[in-house]
């Protein structure tokens, strides 16, 4: 019994020594301070600012009206009146309009052929041509949706006019026997910020954390300082204490910055937030721990403190795409899907999006939660092996 207490006491004191040592090296390293504090503080603000307009509005459209009839002018007016499209000019020929596209004074052309009104009058199908610059899909979407909406509305009016001796309701039902309504869930304005920022924030936690851990470990390796841990390693279960002590230190720092990232930043940019904060926090804990052990495991590849920047920064974009957020998860090839299961951010992003944006409960994201726990176990074991190996290697 006495020995048991002694061991606990020793364990806690070892833990605190490691914890204190790690904290000191974090605070004394400007680069790690940048990664752990400045990046989470400033980067989301810049990023949110970039996408803050959420959607494209008033996309510039130029009209080529070869028909110049009341119908074509009406169509033009209705397009101009929408939020999405702004008709900047009316040209008399195509070449003029194309020149405007080349000069980037407009991004789309709407062309009414000369027989447009004639077709309408003779009850033939009248075609309108819509040309769109494809440098931005958002503009294309604006033009296409607006033109479709306006044509649907005008079609309805034309058909009602053509229907003699029918009541208004009767005409309406004959034209659209089946009505529909559309609802955008969770990100009601289909905004870019609301879609990308949550994923980005979760990824930022992982990337700054793993790069930071690798920089610290690379620094220790560079200066051959692993041996400072040898006294603790000699204790029973020493490796556990070292890994736990360090992880405790990162967890403490990241709980604070995560609170800022996941609760304050969304407030600043008024992103959708319908999750239960308690559920989010209890999901966040395993995520940060998994990222920590993941970073410790990756540090095996790092032999100097500058290498993490070279080797890990570009992976951020791959991690974002592989997670299946910007590219739908159902379309990620199986091979990459399995690779994505190795990375904590895959589960972190999905779990957080579901909790925060769609208001799911913890029980709805059990898959992500359990996967993170499995990752914690696996990466914890690998982290212990790696740290033990490194410390012993240096002592020889």
């Amino acid at each position, binding site marked *: 019994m006495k020995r048991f207490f002694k061991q606990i006491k020793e364990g806690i004191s070892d833990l605190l020594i490691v914890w204190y040592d790690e904290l000191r090296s974090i605070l004394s390293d400007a680069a790690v301070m940048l990664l752990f504090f400045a990046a989470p503080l400033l980067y989301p603000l810049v990023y949110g600012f970039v996408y803050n307009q959420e959607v494209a509005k008033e996309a510039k459209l130029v009209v080529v009206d070869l028909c110049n009839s009341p119908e074509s002018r009406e169509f033009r007016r209705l397009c101009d009146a929408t939020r999405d499209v702004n008709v900047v000019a009316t040209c008399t020929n195509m070449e003029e309009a194309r020149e405007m596209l080349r000069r980037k004074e407009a991004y789309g052309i709407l062309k009414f052929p000369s027989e447009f009104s004639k077709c309408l009058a003779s009850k033939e199908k009248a075609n309108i041509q819509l040309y769109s610059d494809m440098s931005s899909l958002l503009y294309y979407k604006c033009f296409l949706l607006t033109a479709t909406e306006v044509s649907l509305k005008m079609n309805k009016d034309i058909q009602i006019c053509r229907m003699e001796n029918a009541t208004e309701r009767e005409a*309406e039902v004959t034209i659209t026997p089946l*009505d529909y309504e559309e*609802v955008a*869930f969770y990100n009601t304005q289909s905004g870019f910020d609301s*879609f990308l920022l949550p994923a980005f924030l979760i990824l930022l936690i992982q990337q700054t954390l793993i790069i930071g851990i690798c920089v610290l470990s690379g620094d220790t390796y560079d200066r051959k300082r692993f041996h400072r841990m040898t006294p603790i390693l000699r204790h029973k279960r020493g490796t556990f204490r070292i890994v736990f002590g360090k992880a405790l230190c990162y967890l403490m720092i990241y709980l604070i910055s995560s609170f800022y990232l996941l609760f304050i930043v969304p407030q600043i940019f008024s992103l959708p937030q319908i999750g239960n904060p308690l559920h989010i926090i209890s999901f966040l804990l395993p995520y940060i721990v998994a990222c920590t052990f993941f970073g410790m495991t990756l540090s095996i590849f790092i032999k100097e403190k500058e290498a993490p920047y070279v*080797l890990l*920064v570009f992976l951020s974009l791959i991690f974002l795409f592989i997670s299946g957020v910007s*590219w739908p998860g159902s379309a990620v090839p199986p091979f990459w899907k399995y690779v994505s299961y190795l990375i904590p951010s895959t589960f972190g992003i999905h779990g957080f999006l579901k909790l925060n944006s769609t208001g799911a409960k913890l029980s709805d994201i059990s898959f992500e939660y359990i996967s993170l726990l499995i990752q914690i176990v696996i990466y914890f074991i690998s982290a212990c092996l790696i740290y033990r190996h490194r410390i012993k290697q240096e002592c020889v």
Partner: protein
Amino acid sequence: MENYSTIKRIWMIMVREWRILTSRRIYLIAMVGAPLLCVLFFFSLMGKGLPEKMPVAVVDMDNSNISRRLTRQLDNFKQTDVVAHCTSFHEARKLVQKGSAYGIYYIPEGLEHDILSFRQPKVSFYTNNSYIVAGSLLFRDMKTLSILGSAYVARELRYAKGQTERQAMAEIQPIAIETHPIGNPWINYAVYLCNTILPGLLCVMIIITTVFALGSEVKSRRSNELLRIAKDDIMTVMIGKLLPHTLIYFLIITFIEVMLYSYMHFPCQNGLGSMLIVSYLFVLACESIAVFFYALIPILRIALSLSAFFCMLSFSISGFTFPVTEMHPILQTWANVFPLRHFFLLYVDNALNGISFCYSWVSYLALVLFMFLPLLSSWRLKTVYKYDVYDI
């Protein structure tokens, strides 16, 4: 060594740099491995062009002939896959929250009956726009289905009155829109993303690796040696040191462009040659930025942090996902200091739209202007190399 010519000195530094590059694994990974991994990853991810078979849940409260036909038609869309037939809306919403479906198509009870008795029933569809790509693609299909569904019934009514198909269609749809997406008629997402992401990722590797290579000299305390070979001329050092890097990056970006335009056959209106010129200018601009960053902050890790921040931001601010013209005016100005922004504009002009040089010369000029940055910062780099201070 005193009376060696400048060319000879540059050559000596080049040979020395080549030895460093080949002897350390990190350079091989960063300069060749990482870009190739990215090419492989993005081509295999987006090879099909558009995401296909995205899961959607159908709530069919009617279970009639018409409602089943609607469901079947929805399933027939290339990008849609009906994964669940739910009995209640609640059940479908749970599926969306779990992420196993991105949208819900709701068919109310009595649909067929109401259509036949002219009561204008209403179907509803819901898309989860937290996943914006999936959401908007599903939105498009479900909207088309709903409009078609209505048109289908209207057409049947007109057939019954003895109209021909041509007459019926002209009556149902007096005005039709024909869309022409210029340069990318398939609305292929791979064209839209890969053309900028892959050079962008190479830009990340170039800037970070160049800063790393410049700083490593000081770290290993060999920068004095470089200056000695160059007879204290920092331009000789820079040219000799960066020429081997430049050659490797030229090869890599040539490979990327050839893959994009000759292997994947992405549209390239002005020809591969024009894109290669743009790419080479882009590589040089990225290297110049890297030299500038290191001279600005000669503490290697801080310079690397700055580079990483700059590179990752350039993806957002270059405007290939969200148009720069929609951003805040301050950002529209600042976007110009990112080489990737100019690369994107030149790619749009050259490859996508195929317009002539006189419309895009500003961006060419901008890329060339980046190359003057090393000249501005060379005096500082020289000081750093002379007094090789590594750590603070």
